[in-house]
């Protein structure tokens, strides 16, 4: 290497900007440190997280999305107790970008925190890191008074995909909050057990259509004869969104026996539902559904038309 560049430390030089009196210069230093993509910049950005100016702190929290690992996670967790809500929001957002499982080391000690905002952000951050050590705290948090924390905890449990957590997810599927129930039902998709199947089938009778929609969608992943029977009943749900997911799930499960129940739904006035029905009938390629499809070859909705013609092609190809 040229002797001129041997002692040149670009990161140290960029970091000098963090000591400038002007917040604008410090923000520029933060952005340049992030653009360097050099892990040596993490320590300097961690220092900027405790800057006197909220704008610099926010920019440092956002800049840390360019990095990963325990040091980054520790800096972001420390920013979750900032006095400025914008800094907390930026840090919580950056935490969800972490991908290195080792980053979980810095988050795990905070999963029992009493601060709701911090706890929610920590659960959201550790979710995709799939740290089994988080399971205990997540199960405990299912009893937390804040629905956001409970959703975060369900997310952690769902990502860990452990059959041992099924009782906890079943309890969460009966939560008072609609979104907790939806998340819990979606999380049950990994399991092929009878318990998961029974919970999802029961959820098809939930008073909230959003929950029924989530159950209808997830049943396709669980599979099984009971699921097909339950989904065929869900084809008569009062909400078309639930019926649409039931149709899609029956298509994924290739439940040809339901084809003649799906085909009459082509006569409904909901384009999204008709489009999905045509696609599913094409996947099933049941010849007896041909008369229902032929009526809509020249449908006014281009998506419906396209799927109907494709479905008829699939039937003809048999």
């Amino acid at each position, binding site marked *: 290497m040229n002797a001129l560049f041997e002692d040149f430390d670009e990161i140290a030089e960029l970091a000098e900007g963090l000591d400038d009196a002007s917040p*604008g210069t410090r923000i520029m230093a933060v952005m340049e440190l992030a653009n360097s993509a050099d892990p040596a910049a993490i320590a300097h950005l961690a220092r900027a997280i405790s800057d006197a100016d909220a704008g610099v702190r*926010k920019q440092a929290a956002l800049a840390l999305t360019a990095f990963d690992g325990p040091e980054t996670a520790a800096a972001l967790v420390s920013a979750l107790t900032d006095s400025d809500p914008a800094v907390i929001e930026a840090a919580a957002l950056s935490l969800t970008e972490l991908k290195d499982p080792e980053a979980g080391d810095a988050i795990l000690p905070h999963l029992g925190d009493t601060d709701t905002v911090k706890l929610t952000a920590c659960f959201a951050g550790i979710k995709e890191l799939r740290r089994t050590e988080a399971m205990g705290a997540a199960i405990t948090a299912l009893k937390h008074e804040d629905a956001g924390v409970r959703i975060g905890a369900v997310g952690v449990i769902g990502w860990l995909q452990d059959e041992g957590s099924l009782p906890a997810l079943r309890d969460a599927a009966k939560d008072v909050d609609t979104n907790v129930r939806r998340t819990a039902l979606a999380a049950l998709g990994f399991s092929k057990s009878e318990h998961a199947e029974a919970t999802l089938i029961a959820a098809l009778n939930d008073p909230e259509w959003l929950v029924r929609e989530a159950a209808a969608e997830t049943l396709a992943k669980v599979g099984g004869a009971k699921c097909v029977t339950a989904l065929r009943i869900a084809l008569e749900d009062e909400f078309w969104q639930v019926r649409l997911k039931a149709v899609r799930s029956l298509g994924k499960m290739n439940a040809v026996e339901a084809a003649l129940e799906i085909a009459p739904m082509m006569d409904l006035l909901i384009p999204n539902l008709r489009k999905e029905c045509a696609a599913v009938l094409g996947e099933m390629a049941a010849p007896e559904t041909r008369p229902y499809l032929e009526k809509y070859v020249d449908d006014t909705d281009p998506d419906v038309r396209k799927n109907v013609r494709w479905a008829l092609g699939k039937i003809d190809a048999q």
Partner: protein
Amino acid sequence: MPLAQTSTIVPVVIDDALCIADKGCTVCVDVCPLDVLRIVEGPDGSPVTAHMKYDECWYCMPCEADCPTGAVTVNLPFLLK
């Protein structure tokens, strides 16, 4: 492309007091997909502040969202709100 005649009627307004273009920031100029923003230079050629040079905003908003100091405000027309 029509030139923006005055800085008071254009949809993208920069707060000069907050803008840190003088420190080397060009975020709003870099993210604008229509390339309608520019950095105003002083007599000595040094950057002073950002401004909207061409009145062709599509209201896509990254200039406002990405500005590190919150200096950019995009005034959405009533019909887009």
